[in-house]
């Protein structure tokens, strides 16, 4: 059995749709490799780990941002599958998008441990549990792609990164981080599509609301 892949391609000047027939019994990423190896070697897409860890292969599959490596074609239950590059990112070629802006915004949220004191840092398993979930963010950009206001603001991913370090008992830079976020966090309209598409179920929409309250309390001096 075969399905049709409609791929939105971009050659640097203009974008156009291309169609390919691919076997159904594989993941979307495997099908992209199948096209590249057997039909059209000029097709460009990004992939690395092929097991949902690196986040490189995030694309829009039937308008929904997903990891190509974790999506079985048969589970999509469609005869024609549309593949597009992530929204809110500049396209470099075909399905490859530019993540430079994304990582610039990440830096703004100071996603690293800020230590003022020196010495050995101890952490209990319970303290680790507080933030562990948020370390699972793979920076795939799916949440940013799903957000209708991400282009005008920070987007969900950097806020999740900031939240991860704010909850870390070893960190001493929460205030610094909240200060940095206070100008960028108010654009969220709780569309919550970021939570629906996050491949790691981190619920960025909930995190954004939590961080906003923290920023509000910080600004009011509570």
């Amino acid at each position, binding site marked *: 059995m075969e399905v049709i892949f409609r791929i939105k391609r971009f050659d640097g000047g203009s974008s156009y749709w291309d169609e390919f027939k691919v076997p159904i019994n594989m993941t979307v990423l495997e099908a992209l490799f199948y096209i590249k190896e057997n039909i059209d070697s000029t097709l460009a897409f990004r992939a690395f780990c092929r097991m949902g860890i690196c986040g490189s292969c995030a694309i829009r599959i039937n308008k929904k941002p997903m990891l190509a490596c974790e999506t079985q074609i048969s589970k999509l239950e469609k005869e024609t599958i549309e593949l597009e590059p992530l929204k809110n990112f500049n396209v470099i070629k075909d399905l490859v998008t530019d993540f430079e802006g994304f990582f610039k915004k990440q830096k703004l949220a100071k996603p690293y441990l800020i230590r003022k004191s020196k010495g050995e840092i101890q952490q209990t398993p319970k303290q680790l549990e507080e933030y562990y979930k948020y370390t699972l963010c793979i920076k795939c950009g799916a949440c940013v792609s799903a957000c209708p206001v991400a282009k005008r603001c920070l987007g969900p991913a950097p806020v999740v990164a900031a939240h991860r370090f704010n909850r870390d008992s070893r960190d001493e830079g929460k205030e610094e981080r909240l200060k940095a976020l206070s100008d960028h966090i108010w654009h969220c309209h709780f569309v919550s*599509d970021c939570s629906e598409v996050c491949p790691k179920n981190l619920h960025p929409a909930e995190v954004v609301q939590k961080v906003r309250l923290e920023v509000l309390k910080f600004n009011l001096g509570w």
Partner: protein
Amino acid sequence: MSLNTIAFYLHRITGVVLSLYLCMHFTFLTSLKTGDYERLVKASKEFFVLHLLLFLACIYHGVNGIRLVIHEFGYMYKYRKILLYLTFVITFVIWVLFCWKVIK
């Protein structure tokens, strides 16, 4: 387009509609000074259906606004989908009741 996105765009559109209506309403109130009540009342009746639709926009914007405020204060996140469906249901029920009351 997901229902979340539709709710977001509807909130924006109804917000713009209500702002425009507010401007028109102020203009209308100012024109009352002229004393041309009959013409104004007639015009108001001609736009009866539009008024009903305006009320629909008003209810949706209000109910959805309450939903957003609840979430923004960090409550009921787990029930976000139910609340979203409820927003549409509550909006429709209030609107139907309002229409029934007005037409009756």
